């Protein structure tokens, strides 16, 4: 990534290249999840074999892991705020906490997938199975990529070799993280809370 001054330019849109690039990417991601969510909504009631959604969803459990993920957005905000103030130790701390909360969520998802699989919902069992695992799996991969980016940031900051402005990079990763959280709110509502 580059900062805007690299080519002797001021930013015309009043927002740095990295952040604008991330916004554009997130715009694209909306359509990606839009496609996946549409597929799930079309197929969620189509169960020719295996369990139906209402038979396997454990809403209290998923609510707790959703809450954990939402709290990680709070810690992400704290990390961005600390980065803007130039408080390196606090930045690293909050980034680590955010990553841990994210990891807890992914751990919950792994547990949930295992439980569903044992209750008879495989990837190939039914259209519901295929579209459920694809949608939530894609979201899980997004969270995992976010965790890798957060932990890499912490590692890189410790070596203090990060190219570009530190706060800007933290903010950019923060945008991604919040987006992934917001998508989960939609997925949680549509997949778990609205009965088929």
């Amino acid at each position, binding site marked *: *990534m*580059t900062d*805007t001054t*690299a*080519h*002797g*330019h*001021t*930013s*015309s*849109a009043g*927002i740095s*290249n990295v952040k*604008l*690039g991330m916004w*554009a*990417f997130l*715009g*694209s*991601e*909306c*359509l*990606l999840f*839009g*496609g*996946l969510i549409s*597929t799930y909504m*079309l*197929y969620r009631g*189509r169960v*020719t074999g295996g369990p139906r959604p209402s038979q396997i969803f454990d809403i209290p459990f998923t609510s707790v892991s959703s809450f954990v993920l939402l709290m990680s957005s709070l810690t992400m905000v704290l990390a961005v705020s600390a980065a803007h103030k130039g408080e390196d130790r606090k930045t690293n701390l909050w980034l680590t906490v955010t990553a841990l909360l994210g990891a807890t969520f992914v751990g919950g998802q792994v547990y949930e997938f295992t439980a569903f699989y044992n209750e008879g919902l495989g*990837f*190939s069992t*039914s*259209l519901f*199975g*295929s*579209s459920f695992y*694809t949608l939530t799996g894609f979201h899980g991969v997004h969270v995992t990529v976010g965790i890798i980016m957060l932990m*890499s940031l912490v590692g*890189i900051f410790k070596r203090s*070799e990060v*190219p*570009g402005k530190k706060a800007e990079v933290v903010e950019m990763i923060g945008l991604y993280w919040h987006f992934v959280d917001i998508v989960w709110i939609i997925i949680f509502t549509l997949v778990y809370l609205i009965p088929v």
Partner: protein
Amino acid sequence: MAIIEREIEVMAPMVATPTSTYGVLKRPVAATGWRAWVFTVDHKKLGLMYGVTAMFFFIVGGVEALLIRLQLAAPNGKVLNADLYNQMFTMHATTMVFLFVMPMAAGFANYFIPLQIGARDVAFPRMNALGFWMFLFGGIFINLSWFIGGAADGGWFMYAPNSGPVFSPTHGIDFWAFGLQITGIASLTGAINLIVTVLNMRAPGMTLMKMPIFTWMMTVVQFLLLFAVPVITVALFLLSFQRNFGARFFDVAAGADPLLWQHLFWIFGHPEVYILVLPSFGIVSEVLPVFSRKPLFGYPFVVFSGAAIGFVGWGVWAHHMFASGLGPVSVAVFSLTTMAIAVPTGVKIINWILTMWGGKLVFSTAMKFSIGLIVLFTVGGLSGVTHSVAPSDTQQTDTYYIVAHFHYVLFGGGVLGIFSGLYYWWPKMFGKMLNERLGNWNFWLMVIGMNLTFGPMHILGLQGQPRRMYQFTEARSGEGLFNFAFWNLVASIGSFVLAVGILLFLINVVITARNPTKSPLDPWNSRSLEWMTSNPPKEHNFDVIPTVHHLDEFFHRKYEEDPATHTMRQIATAEEIMAEQERNADAHIHMPSPSYWPIVLAFGLPVITFGMIFSHLIAVFGAVIVFFAAFGWALEPSTAPASDFETNNSAPSTELDTVGKS
């Protein structure tokens, strides 16, 4: 390479060498030879690489087309068997759409957007290189399937459930789906990059409504890509998961809805046709004013009609599905939106004609191709309007009439625009002008060939010849004026005339390369910023970043209105403007440094997808490559810091010596 020291008269850039290691490997520094290309992040080099690769795939797709036409030249064609024929038309379309027109447009965009907006490079130079390498490797990956069991054979829109493992047991469609996934990511990175470049890096004073029209149209295209690519990404994932991991998405026995694929594909696919044709609209809108010696008529209308096409293009996708039983309401709505999108397209055509109206027309080859586009695209546009009428479309669906229509818009529109751009910008890119006499032959053979090839297809289609039919029999070919065999033969002859026309272009390129004559600095008396630099442009594009006061800034620096007569008179030549710039050149210009990581990261992706098809162990290996390349990338600054260079020039300064030791 990366730091360019300038003195008042010496123009040679000094080569600088990074001394410290970032990530795992030292930065590449070669300024010449193959390394200068493979590790480059320069938008102009990448633009040329896109262009050359796209031309290569154009020839591949062209040969596939010729084989199809040979097969259909006479009844009971024996050139290809049915299976190979299926692969041939699938790969012809895939190659032409994804591996020729799109990357060719990406090449033009890469090369000319930074030059047109007065920037020295794009916003993310390494991501730019990544995009090119992903496109190249993705293209190679798709075509690998020819050698590993056979290519994809489901048609370019790959309708489900025909694309499932039952009906297409070879790995062709797997290669197709994964390969397009890779080129899709390439398009996505390109779109993000160019959007940020256009929004953030315009020269001082260049407001959006002073932006050259080609940049405007390409910006609309990048937004279309940004939102269309993820939809095909989803569709391709669903298809791959079904074929490779046992998902049920298109398994009708499990209750799947085959229309899901059609909707996802065409929500991508219809914006895609504007992705293919808007770049050429941009090129034509640059070429026509220059060779009419007039400003573009109604610039804001051309801009907003382009944007309108970009918006309305999202609301017409189901006109590809009128025959699938959508129900009367959907059909009526999509009929109306399809008729509506003809309006902004018509606005453009009117603007182009009025640009030429009363102008001092110069019939250069570039201009001829542009006029050819107006005429032939309009023909294709009119047959397009007949598709918007659902009852008529139901008759035309899956016939050669459709084939005729989209070749008139994509060849008559897209490809002629690309050739117009090639002739127009060749002196800018290579400092030499393509031979105009040969260009004339090139143009007429292409236009005559294309009309001979695709014109008869209207008749064939309305007579009921289905597209994708691999053979027809003498007994069923009809009589008189509507004889299948006759018109198919005409189309086949036309396709070879067309091929000769394109061959002439390649010959022209070789002749031009061997011709030592340099082109003048401003051969066409052009209007926009890309001509305000040397031919070919310097590595840093502009010695001074220009401050923009007008639309058509370069024109207004050359000409001034005489208040008495209200005519334009010349106040400066291009050479004088150039010399002025060189006198005031910026002293220290830091250009982004080359990098190994884009090509390494891009290489990891086909390794992953290859592993997805054959062995998951290989996929893990590919993922490791991607992972480490991403880290090397993240740890390496885009522009190496000043302390990281030692100049190879004359006597090394003591100051730099200490930097090296510390």
